[in-house]
Structure formats: structure tokens, C-alpha cells
């Protein structure tokens, strides 16, 4: 085994060294210009995609070389167990990935930590491990494409989407990646047998293979099916987002002018008060607020959604937030030296949660809006929201006020709050949200003589399986008392089969997908949503599809001459999982053609 391992390293030594040098060069070049550890998540995902592609290509190249019949025979026909041979090849690949991709990152981290004033947190030391596991997973998926049965092996790389769709952060990401790597490793080891290209015969490898193929098919059908449906609808020209939206629907509401939306909310009321409100809407300049953050930075996450830094231009200092000290760490833009730590208020206390930063020197974390005061070189809290609430937008000037949205309520302050804080200028109004922040599309309001007339529109994800759209109209009086005015259900612009295709296609796999993507995920208050009301037609479709799949599976297994146990097993699986299970059966056990 050691011989094969060394031989494989020797085989790729030039490529490994070349990749290592190129990688080091690129990191050194870009590291001179920007702080690579503060890159936004989108850029990091782009770079990770290049790493994954490297892993995929390496796996395809390495295994396709051996997969030719005579080379495969030469490799495996020797007094060494196949798993040891696989271990040698995979071990060599691990070393290659480690040297070419991970080592330059470790060198960069070490250099930045030792020789610069840039922030290097403990969380950053997880990046090499996370990158290694991602690339290794891609390598294994590619290896399986070559070693597995061609009819279905090409589907396995689809499972890599779990690397990107997982909601886990920090060490949770590593855990998810490790689980995916273990799963793929098991698949590759199962396929690494002399009689390659065979459907596994033993129950556990067969189960792992079938489940992987089914999940990949499910993801493919959901994505491709949804895409084909949407594109087809757009081409027909009646898509709700293509031209005039349907009346009374969420698409219309989300794009409407504030005054039109308020008028629509009042449409069913005909009393004297409503006539006055309509007149006031007509005469006023309505205000609008929408949720700003999908999520706020969380302590320990490996990358930042956006860089957590701002510049003090007067002193030429760049303040970068450290998850370790939970303070901003200053670095001189003139000579790169350290320039102290910046916490909150005069006491310089640490932040409770990492904040999002903005170019004007303001920061927002879950509970505090703060502003950097250059003259005092101090980060002064301006607004604190009550415990248990999470800020969902930056404070926004609206008319004479400042509005701040949290996951529970809308707060209205005097404008002075931005300069003197909420101790001096506490919230004038707290208006509770009528739904969940994750469903909220917009809030529109006008100022009345004795309060506000306010519309809350929900149903942000209704077209993609979220809860139904609804508009709540309320009057808030001067004392903060909320009086319901009207409620308008917004029609669904997208048909139920389109909105819930991820459910009726396979309720079981949808749950598995949801469970895996949310494994090790922290609470996300800004994503809170009401569970959707799923129409009966969706459940009926799912049941019918599962039944049809079970019947088709039974017929197919009879024709495929599977034994009784497997016939029953597959039929049961199709009854539970539905169409993906039947399709996976067709790929695993195709019907034999007439032979001559």
C-alpha cells in the first residue's frame, strides 16, 4: 500500500508542485492588495468553486487513468486488498490536495498572524480544514463518477450542493463537510472492487447507493423541473413577473406604490373614517420600509457575508472586527502597524455579537445600532432593542422620524436618536409585527394627526412554498395602541403545483433535505416564518405519485427478476419516497433487452 501511495505521489509530483507555487503566488499577490480573510462570502464561494473544480478534475483524471480495463486489472490483480489500494490512491489525493490547496492557505494565515496587524481569528484557522474537506468531497464524487455504474454514477456530484446549501456555520460547517466526505468515501470504497461497474450486492452499500441516487434525482427534478416550468411560462408570456401582474396577488402588492397599496387595503371599508383615511392617503407622501438583513454576522462563522471593517479617514486607520476579542482592531493604513482596539462606548466593552458595518462608520448587530465618532475615536451605541429581539434593518429616516425594524416590531424614533441615543430619545412608537419577519415583504404607512395608518404585507416567499400573502391594515394612535383596520388576503400568483413541487415530488426527501441543510445550523431569527398552508391538492398529488411509483416499481422489479425480498423492499421504498425511488430503480436495475 505504501508503495502504491508513494508511486501515486511521484506520479503527480510536478502537478502538485506547480499548483502549490501558482497558488502561493496568487495568494501573495492578492494578499498584498486586500485582506483575504475579510472577503465577502460571495467571493469566497467563487474561490471555493475553483478549488472544487480542481478536486473534481483531479478525481476524474486520476481514476479514469486506472479505469481502463487492462489498467484496472493490473492495479487490482495483486496480493493487496482493494480497500488498501483505494486507500493508497485516495491517500495520495489527500496529500496532493493538502499540499496544493491547503498548505498555501496555512502559510498565508501564519504569515498574516505573525507578520501583520491584520486580524486573524481562531475561526480563520478552520478555513484550511473546511477547504480541504470541500475539495476532498469533490474529488471523491468525481472518483465515484468513474468507478460507479455509468447509468447513475454521474448523479452523485449533485450531492455536493449540500456543501453550499447547508445553513451551518463555523465548526458546524466542518461537521457537515466531514459527514458528506464520510458518505462519499463509503460509496467510493464500495465501488472500488475488481468487478467494477456493478450495482452493490450487499445491503448496506446498496442502501447507501440507492439513497444517494434518489436524493440526487430529487434535487435534479426539483431544480430542472422548476426551471423548465418557469422558463416555459415566461416564454408563453403570462408569467406573473413578466408584464402586468395578476390583480390582488402578492406580486402586485410587492411592486405597488405605497399609496396604492394602502388604498387597496382600505377598499372593502366604506365608513366615514375610511373616507377620511383615503383622503389622507391621497394627500400624504406614504413611507415604506422593507426588511434589510437576511441574517446578521454570527460569532465563529468562518467567512463574513460582507467585510466587517470601516476606515477612520482622519487618522488613516482601518478598523476590522475580531471575533476573538469581539472588538474592532485598528491598523494604520500608512504603515500597517497596530492601532489599538475599539469596543463599545467609553468603557470600550466588547460587542455581544459581531456587527455588520457600513461605510459611514455605523454598525448594527442583533441588539445594538452604534455609530463611530471620529473625534472621540469611540463607538457609541445609539439604539438598543429589547432582549429577545433582533434588528432587521438599519435605522431609516422616514419623514421626521427614524424607523427601525426588528424581527418583532417596528420602532419609530425622533431623528435626534441618531446623534444622542435612545436613552435621551426613546422610541415614540413600538408597532408589533402582525406576522413573522421572514414572511414580511414591506411596511407602508402615513402619518395621521393622532398616529399612523400602517400596512404590513406578508407572503415574501409565497411563490416558493412560503405562507400565503396577506395585508394587514392597522391604525396606531398616539399612545401606541394598535387598532386593526382591515385584512386582505393576497391571492397566490403561482399555482400550488409550482409553489410546492419540492413537496409533492417526494415529501420524505423534502424533509431529509430540510433536515440535512439545517443540521448544526444556529437559530436564525430573521428567517422566522409561519409554516405554509399546504393545499390538499398537493398532498393528494404526492399520495397519487407515490402510489403510482409503488405500482410501477412492483411491475419493474418483477420484470427485472429481483428476488422477493428486494422486490418488496423496493416497492416499499417507492411507496414512501415516490418518483425518485422508482427512477433510481430504473437506473440501478434496467430491464434487459432481448439478447441474441
Amino acid at each position: 500500500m505504501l508503495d502504491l501511495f508513494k508511486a501515486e505521489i511521484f506520479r503527480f509530483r510536478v502537478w502538485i508542485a506547480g499548483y502549490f507555487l501558482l497558488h502561493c503566488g496568487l495568494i501573495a499577490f492578492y494578499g498584498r492588495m486586500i485582506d483575504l480573510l475579510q472577503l465577502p462570502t460571495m467571493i469566497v464561494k467563487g474561490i471555493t468553486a475553483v478549488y472544487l473544480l480542481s478536486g473534481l478534475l483531479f478525481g476524474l483524471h486520476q481514476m479514469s487513468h486506472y479505469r481502463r480495463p487492462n489498467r484496472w486489472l493490473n492495479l487490482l490483480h495483486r496480493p493487496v486488498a482493494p480497500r488498501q489500494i483505494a486507500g493508497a490512491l485516495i491517500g495520495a489525493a489527500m496529500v496532493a490536495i493538502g499540499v496544493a490547496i491547503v498548505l498555501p492557505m496555512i502559510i498565508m494565515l501564519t504569515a498574516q498572524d505573525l507578520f501583520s496587524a491584520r486580524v486573524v481569528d481562531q475561526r480563520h484557522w478552520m478555513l484550511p480544514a473546511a477547504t480541504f474537506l470541500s475539495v476532498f468531497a469533490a474529488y471523491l464524487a468525481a472518483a465515484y463518477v468513474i468507478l460507479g455504474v455509468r447509468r447513475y454514477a454521474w448523479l452523485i456530484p449533485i450531492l455536493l450542493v449540500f456543501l453550499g446549501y447547508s445553513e451551518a456555520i463555523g465548526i458546524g460547517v466542518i461537521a457537515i463537510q466531514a459527514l458528506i466526505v464520510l458518505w462519499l468515501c463509503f460509496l467510493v470504497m464500495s465501488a472500488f472492487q475488481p468487478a467494477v461497474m456493478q450495482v452493490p450486492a450487499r445491503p448496506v452499500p446498496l442502501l447507501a447507493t440507492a439513497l444517494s441516487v434518489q436524493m440526487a434525482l430529487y434535487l435534479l427534478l426539483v431544480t430542472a423541473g422548476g426551471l423548465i416550468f418557469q422558463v416555459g411560462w415566461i416564454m408563453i408570456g403570462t408569467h406573473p413577473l413578466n408584464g402586468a401582474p395578476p390583480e390582488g396577488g402578492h406580486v402586485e402588492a410587492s411592486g405597488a406604490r405605497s399609496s396604492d397599496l394602502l388604498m387597496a387595503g382600505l377598499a372593502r371599508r366604506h365608513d366615514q373614517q375610511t373616507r377620511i383615511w383615503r383622503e389622507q392617503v391621497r394627500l400624504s407622501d406614504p413611507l415604506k420600509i422593507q426588511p434589510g438583513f437576511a441574517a446578521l454576522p454570527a460569532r465563529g462563522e468562518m467567512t463574513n457575508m460582507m467585510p466587517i471593517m470601516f476606515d477612520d479617514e482622519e487618522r488613516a486607520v482601518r478598523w476590522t472586527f475580531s471575533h476573538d476579542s469581539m472588538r474592532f482592531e485598528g491598523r494604520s493604513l500608512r504603515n500597517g502597524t497596530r492601532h489599538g482596539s475599539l469596543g463599545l462606548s467609553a468603557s470600550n466593552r466588547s460587542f455581544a455579537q459581531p456587527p455588520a458595518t457600513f461605510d459611514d462608520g455605523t454598525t448594527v448587530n442583533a441588539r445594538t445600532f452604534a455609530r463611530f465618532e471620529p473625534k472621540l475615536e469611540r463607538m457609541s451605541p445609539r439604539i438598543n432593542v429589547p432582549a429577545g429581539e433582533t434588528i432587521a434593518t438599519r435605522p431609516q429616516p422616514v419623514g421626521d422620524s427614524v424607523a427601525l425594524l426588528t424581527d418583532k416590531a417596528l420602532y419609530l424614533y425622533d431623528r435626534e436618536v441618531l446623534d444622542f441615543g435612545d436613552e435621551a430619545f426613546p422610541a415614540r412608537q413600538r408597532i408589533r409585527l402582525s406576522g413573522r419577519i421572514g414572511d414580511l415583504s414591506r411596511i407602508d404607512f402615513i402619518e395621521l394627526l393622532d398616529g399612523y395608518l400602517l400596512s404590513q404585507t406578508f407572503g415574501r416567499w409565497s411563490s416558493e412554498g412560503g405562507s400565503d400573502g396577506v395585508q394587514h391594515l392597522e391604525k396606531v394612535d398616539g399612545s401606541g395602541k394598535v387598532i386593526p383596520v382591515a385584512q386582505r388576503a393576497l391571492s397566490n400568483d403561482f399555482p400550488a403545483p409550482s409553489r410546492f413541487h419540492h413537496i409533492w415530488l417526494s415529501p420524505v426527501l423534502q424533509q431529509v433535505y430540510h433536515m440535512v441543510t439545517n443540521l448544526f445550523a444556529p437559530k436564525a431569527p430573521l428567517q422566522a416564518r409561519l409554516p405554509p398552508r399546504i393545499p390538499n391538492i398537493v398532498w393528494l398529488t404526492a399520495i397519487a405519485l407515490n402510489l403510482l411509483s409503488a405500482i410501477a416499481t412492483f411491475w419493474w422489479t418483477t420484470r427485472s427478476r429481483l428476488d422477493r425480498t428486494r422486490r418488496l423492499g423496493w416497492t416499499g421504498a417507492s411507496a414512501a419516497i415516490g418518483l425518485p425511488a422508482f427512477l433510481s430503480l430504473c437506473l440501478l436495475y434496467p430491464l434487459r433487452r432481448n439478447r441474441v
Partner: protein
Amino acid sequence: MISALEKQAFDCAPRPDLAIETIGLTFHHGSKLVLDHLDLRVERGGIHALVGANGAGKSTLFRILLGFLPPDAGNSFLLRHDSLHLSIDDRRRVGFVNEEHSLPEWMTIAAVTAMQRRQYCDWNERAFASAIGNYGMLPSQKVGELSRGERAGFNLALALAQSPEILILDEPTLGLDIVAKGAFMESLLYSNATEACTIIYCSHQMEEIERLADNLIILERGRLANISPPDEFRERVSHWVADVPFKGPEAATIPGLLQRHLIDGIHHYLVLDQGEGFAEFLRDAGAGRIRTQRVSLDRAVNAFLARNHAAAGR
């Protein structure tokens, strides 16, 4: 009295005196039948030549025997062990050389040799040195730098040094020039490692087979068409030259016909398993002068394998 199940198990049990045994071995490649209920028994010891037209199923048979292809039906045994469950030790006892000589091109001869030496506990250094001595290779040379003939020789030397109980050679001299072929045959014939070894030699080179083989196995369309010593097979094919008037007897009426040619008005017939009775047949067909002559193994095998073409032309 034994039950049907016991009888079936008994029928499928490998015989200890056999190096290779297949029972009802069937394999399809897509919709094409490659091996057709093949029953083959190869005794231990000696050199067994395996011949057949392209697509006869020779390489498929080897892959099934080595456990690299599962058959659609039937059983195969290598050294009494089920091919689908060959252990590490079984693989140690079986040497295999294919026509591609697919060794790792990036490794040096010394590195490949060292690796094989460590993996095979019965490594026969003398056999290796003897076989490789026919070639002027340097240990520091990479496999990728070797000529095709040198690679074949190196591959054979590695296989012989493993001290295999059975050595399978799948068209090992394919594409080699005459000098390389000669060196390869020298290495094989004069190696001390082959004394206690069963050799299965698949080739289209009849002169090699004539020189080497103790036994001739002919596969035809996935079936066993012959298994006998080469001379015995050659005796079965006879060449008759007859002065028959006009176009001679209809092909369909000629017993055991493999091939026939009309050269300068004289009829030439290659027939299988025909004795003096064939002369009577020719005389009855009006033949004047009749003579018979021996055929080479090459011609006998070619005529045997091409007999369906003759049938098609009837």
C-alpha cells in the same frame, strides 16, 4: 440417496486436478452473447493455448476467471476457487500478462520491481533476473521510456518472478516485432519459474502455439469448439486435392467441409474428421486423380475458425 440440491452443489464443486473450470458460463455484452454456456476444464500443468477469432470471448473469459466481470450465469473456478471470491492469496498465485502491458509509465523499473518484490512473498529473483536478462534495460529507466517489446519482457519477468501456480498470457506478443517476439518466447520457454506452473496462452500466432502448447483450446462464438493437443487437432483436418470434372459436388453435400478452392481447374478441399471414406466420396463425384496432404496447424485452425464462412457460401 442425495437430494437435487446436493447434486447441484456436487456438480458445481470444482475439481482439484483442474487449474481452470467453468460450468455453464454465460456472459452478454449488451445484447450480444459473448460466452454461451461454456463448459471448460483445463488440467493443471503444461501450456494450454487458447485461440479463437476476434470476439470469441477469450479476454472476457479471462476477466471472468480473475473476478473482474461477474457472469450472467454459470460458475467459474480458478485453482479451485470461485472467481467472484478470489482472496488476496489466490491473486498471489495467479500471474497475468495482457497485450497492453499496462504498467505505471511514470515509475522506474527499479521502483516497480521493488514494489512487486514487497507484495509477492514467493518472489523468485532468479526467474526475474533470468527473464529480464534478455533485454538491455536499466533500472533507472521509466516504464514509459521502454519500447513495446521491452515492456512486454519486463511485464513477463514480473509475472514469472511472482512464482505463480497459473500464468495467464492474453496475447502478450501482439504488436511486437519479430526480434521482440523471439526474446519474449526465449524468456518464457527457458524460465525455471514455469516448470511447476500452468500456462494459459492466448494468441493468434500459430507458430508460437505450435512451438509452445501442449494443449489447444479453441473458442468459437463463446463455446468450446476443441480441446486437444495441437497435433491431434491438426490430424483431424485433412487437405484433399482432386481432379473433379466441372464445378464438383455441391458444398452442402461435402462431409466435414471447412474450405474449398478451385486452383487451375484442380479442386482443393479442407475437411474435418474425414478418413479414407472421403476419397470414396470424391470418386463418386467423378474425381480422377486424388491425393491427400498434411496441413499446418495455422491453416487447420484458420480453416476451422472460418468454416462458417464456407457454410455461408454454400
